[in-house]
């Protein structure tokens, strides 16, 4: 089960009690142990007992191992994360109906991943969509209140009169807010929701008030944003993440949703303030079924599966279902990879087995048999079709992908609107893409880009623009051989199969893969300040023989993950 359901688990046990009896810091902790005695999650207004003051417990946050960490911007949940969180909060029938509405704005990918902070800047239209989505779900709830309210608010099973509901609203708000915000609500937040309930109840009745409360939570900034005030450290611009903040990061990395019961318990008892405690939880999560969420999302986005949404290819093997099937193929590959293989980077790139999707059989079975097998994620039909034009391959785009996303080598940006036909001249009439584009590697105005891009694209020309295998283009044999001779990656390769094997064995590619996971986890690009954390992550990944689960654990225990550089010290 992903997330935490209403009325169960550690949140429910603690949430009501914390406000009235100090449950928040009342877990078994040794005074001065440095483990979360004053896990002061949340913004201002946290009650005195919540903050630990007056209890004798002195917070002692962990210290950096590295000198510093990269600046971490505020992130808003991606659309996928939002729906995972909402799915963990709402009764199943309501969550399913809400998903059907799907009015939450889709996440724009500006740079690599949907988790990036830059993907979540809110435009006015998106702000309205967020509001409308919450309103639509609340209206669904309102329309079937008799059924749904007791599933969300236990006391509602006794009736929806003010006498009944008024009495249990404070407990419901505490419980629900604690789960939705991934931390206990502040006194101000709690009062805000109760005031909202009372105000709407007085004007339009209890039923409308319950809908209003749900509508609030579904668009509350504390739900939408991953705020991390953290705990002070010796470094004025670096904070250590609190237990709840670490729990949230772990949950979003591994499951993409709410922290599960064990994470919540670990946050409450301070274990997530230690590297060992984080490692224990990360390793547990890496072995759970929830990790498939990360595997599917990461690999779909790393391979730019989003570029297939609504894509059209002028090809006899392409029909209305193909783009969706290919997008799904990338997700399925990620899940299959973690469920059915050793979960290593080498397997990811070199496996000769693939998860099956009947909709793509015609593409995979097309073309002449060949001695060189199709290998790994980079040669899936989806990967090939995503880097292609509507009626031809794009060896430049494929080459750019390998350089940028597999080897983390620089790629010059496409210089706008190139006069392709004029540049190609007579070469433009040659039958194969290689023949047409190889001359650009010596043409002075083009060589600067094409010398670096073309070689990584040549081997993949054995796959056409929907990913079907081919031996010829326009009646001419396709030459997939290539000699690559750059300082960080060199070799002679007969085809894509040989190239991906070499990539799988390349330290550079392995490091690049780790870098992309770091970006996915942090929601930003790395900076110089992340060098120490990244070095540790890459070393751990390499030492594990490229085990992707171990890579995720290494990211989770890194300073970069457990600390936050606020940029200016935070506070007002």
């Amino acid at each position, binding site marked *: 089960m992903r997330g935490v359901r209403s009325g169960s688990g550690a949140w429910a046990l603690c949430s009501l009690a914390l406000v009235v009896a100090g449950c928040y810091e009342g877990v078994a902790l040794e005074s001065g142990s440095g483990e979360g005695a004053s896990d002061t999650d949340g913004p201002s207004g946290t009650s005195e007992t919540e903050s630990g003051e007056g209890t004798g417990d002195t917070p002692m946050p962990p210290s950096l191992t590295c000198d510093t960490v990269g600046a971490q911007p505020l992130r808003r949940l991606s659309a996928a994360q939002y729906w995972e969180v909402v799915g963990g909060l709402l009764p199943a029938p309501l969550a399913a109906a809400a998903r059907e509405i799907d009015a939450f704005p889709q996440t724009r990918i500006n740079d690599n991943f949907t988790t990036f902070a830059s993907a979540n800047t809110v435009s006015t239209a998106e702000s309205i969509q967020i509001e409308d989505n919450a309103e639509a779900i609340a209206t669904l709830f309102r329309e079937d209140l008799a059924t749904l309210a007791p599933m969300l608010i236990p006391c509602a099973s006794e009736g929806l009169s003010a006498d009944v509901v008024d009495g249990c609203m404070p407990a419901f708000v505490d419980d629900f807010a604690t789960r939705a915000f991934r931390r206990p609500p502040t006194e101000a937040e709690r009062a805000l929701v109760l005031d909202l309930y009372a105000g*709407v109840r007085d004007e339009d009745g209890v039923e409308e008030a319950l809908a209003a409360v749900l*509508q609030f939570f579904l668009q509350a900034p504390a739900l939408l944003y991953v705020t991390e005030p953290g705990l002070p450290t010796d470094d004025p611009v670096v904070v250590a993440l609190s237990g709840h903040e670490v729990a949230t990061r772990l949950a979003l990395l591994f499951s993409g949703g709410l922290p599960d019961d064990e994470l919540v318990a670990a946050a409450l008892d301070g274990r997530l303030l230690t590297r060992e405690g984080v490692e224990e939880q990360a390793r547990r999560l890496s072995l759970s079924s929830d990790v498939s969420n990360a595997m599917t999302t990461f690999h779909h986005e790393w391979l730019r599966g989003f570029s297939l949404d609504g894509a059209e290819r002028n090809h006899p093997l392409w029909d209305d279902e193909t783009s969706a099937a290919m997008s799904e193929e990338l997700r399925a590959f990620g899940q299959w990879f973690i469920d059915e293989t050793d979960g290593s980077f080498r397997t990811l790139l070199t496996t000769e087995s693939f998860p099956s999707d009947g909709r793509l059989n015609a593409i995979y079975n097309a073309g002449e048999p060949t001695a060189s097998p199709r290998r790994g994620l980079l040669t899936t039909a989806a990967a090939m079709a995503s880097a292609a034009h509507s009626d031809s391959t794009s060896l430049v785009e494929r080459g750019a992908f390998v350089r*940028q996303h597999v080897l983390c080598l620089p790629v010059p940006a496409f210089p706008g609107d190139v006069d392709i036909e004029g540049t190609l001249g007579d070469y433009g009439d040659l039958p194969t893409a290689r023949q047409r584009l190889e001359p650009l590697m010596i043409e002075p105005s083009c060589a600067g880009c094409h010398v670096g891009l073309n070689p990584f694209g040549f081997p993949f020309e054995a796959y056409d623009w929907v990913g079907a295998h081919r031996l010829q283009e326009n009646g001419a044999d396709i030459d997939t051989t290539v000699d690559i001779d750059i300082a960080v990656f060199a070799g002679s390769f007969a085809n894509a199969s040989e190239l991906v094997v070499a990539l799988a064995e390349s330290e550079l590619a392995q490091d690049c893969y780790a870098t992309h996971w770091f970006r996915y986890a942090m929601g930003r690009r790395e900076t110089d300040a992340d060098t120490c954390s990244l070095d540790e992550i890459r070393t751990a990944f390499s030492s594990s023989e490229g085990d992707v689960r171990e890579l995720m654990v290494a990211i989770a225990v890194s300073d970069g993950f457990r600390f936050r550089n606020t940029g200016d010290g935070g*506070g007002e």
Partner: protein
Amino acid sequence: MRRRRFLQGACGLTVGLPMLSRFAAEEARAAGDPNGPRRVITMAYPMGTHVPFFRPTATGSNFDFGPITTSMEPFKDRTLVVSSCPNAVLNVGGSGYVYGHPGKKESVFTGTLMRHAFGASGENHIDNVVEQSPDGNQRTANGPSVDHVIGEFLSDGSHLRPSVDLGVAGRQLADNVDSEFFYEAPENPVTLQANPGLAFASLFSGVMPDGEVDESLLTLQRRRKSVLDAVRDSFVDLRQGLSSADRAVLDDHADKIRDIELDMPPPLACTIPDAPSEDPEAYTDWSMGDYADIQIRLMAHAMACGVAPVGRLEFFQQQNPFFGIPLVDDAVATVQDWHHPVVHASDGWEKDGEVRVTGLRFFVEKFAQLCAELDSIVEGADGQTVLDNSLCVLGSDLGEGDGHGAFDLCFLIAGGSGPGRRQYHFDGSGENVNRVLNSLLQMACVTDAGGAPIDEFGLGGFAPGVIPELLA
């Protein structure tokens, strides 16, 4: 809580100034000017035009429209044509206009260069975008577009939403599309709704047919207001302990939550157009013309209903449109559904050829169609139409499409209100686009927080001042 200040509008009268923004309290916004337009509607299309056929026959007030702009004839007395105007901001710091598309859509209504244009190299040119953008695709403008600024000025709390943003797909139905022309802030493009059914549902959910009272809608609006009040308040608490950059992100979102500090306006009562289907299957085989027709109708009625003070309509999927004009579509199909050679007048296409000119004329015809829709709706007791009280602008990223140049942009400015000149053709070859944008602000009577007319927009210090000839 409602707060008002009173300032002098640029066009002469004292106007109320509602404070819409709690977190941007210093950002004063006037509620329009009674002598200016009530609304602004901007339409943008990609790939430019054929300038000799766009230009009227003469400058000044005595002119005939060119072959591409003849459809504006019914509105000639309320139209200002600006032709051949260089978008000179694209050449700031450089040694020539960058070739191709980069920066052009992003700059035409914002008057800015793009993100990364001011790179670490110290150069100050659009080429830096191409060289320094992390993945070559982060091409967004460095400032809001002029329509957004006008819209904020015209907002008076009576609208249901800040803007009406519609996309016109060239061929394939889409839902939410990032605008390339229109921006709310630096690097924050407007989101366009290109699915007519979803657009209708969003625009008219708070609008009632004339005379009806829907109690359930009123209840829903009360609930919305209470919830949004609480949401806004909860932003305040969440800011504690965050960095200034993070607080700015939260503040920006809080600012965008609609109409919270004003009383929620009652549902508007006006004529609601027929609802288009929300089912994507209903749009199979639709052409760009089909999409344009229905989006223009939604835009006109939404603006007439007062749904928002600013409307934006953008044509996209520029490279591969299905016009719905057999002459053009059949010809384009012969080059593998690739409109680009037609615009370029390459591959044997003639610059003055009927196919090319028909395709380019299409966009002006749709602008004229918008004007006609607006002009068919009477508002107020004096018989004035919605068009009379609107400022409508048509523009593109390029001038002459075949060279992809940006040194000869053409605009149509239509509507009856405000100090903008009408029935006039201005040859902009000695001017630049930024000063056209400055002039548009004054046509809408926009003032700064101190009540002074704004005469500089876009890249600071580049091209202050208006073009006097554009103002009556």
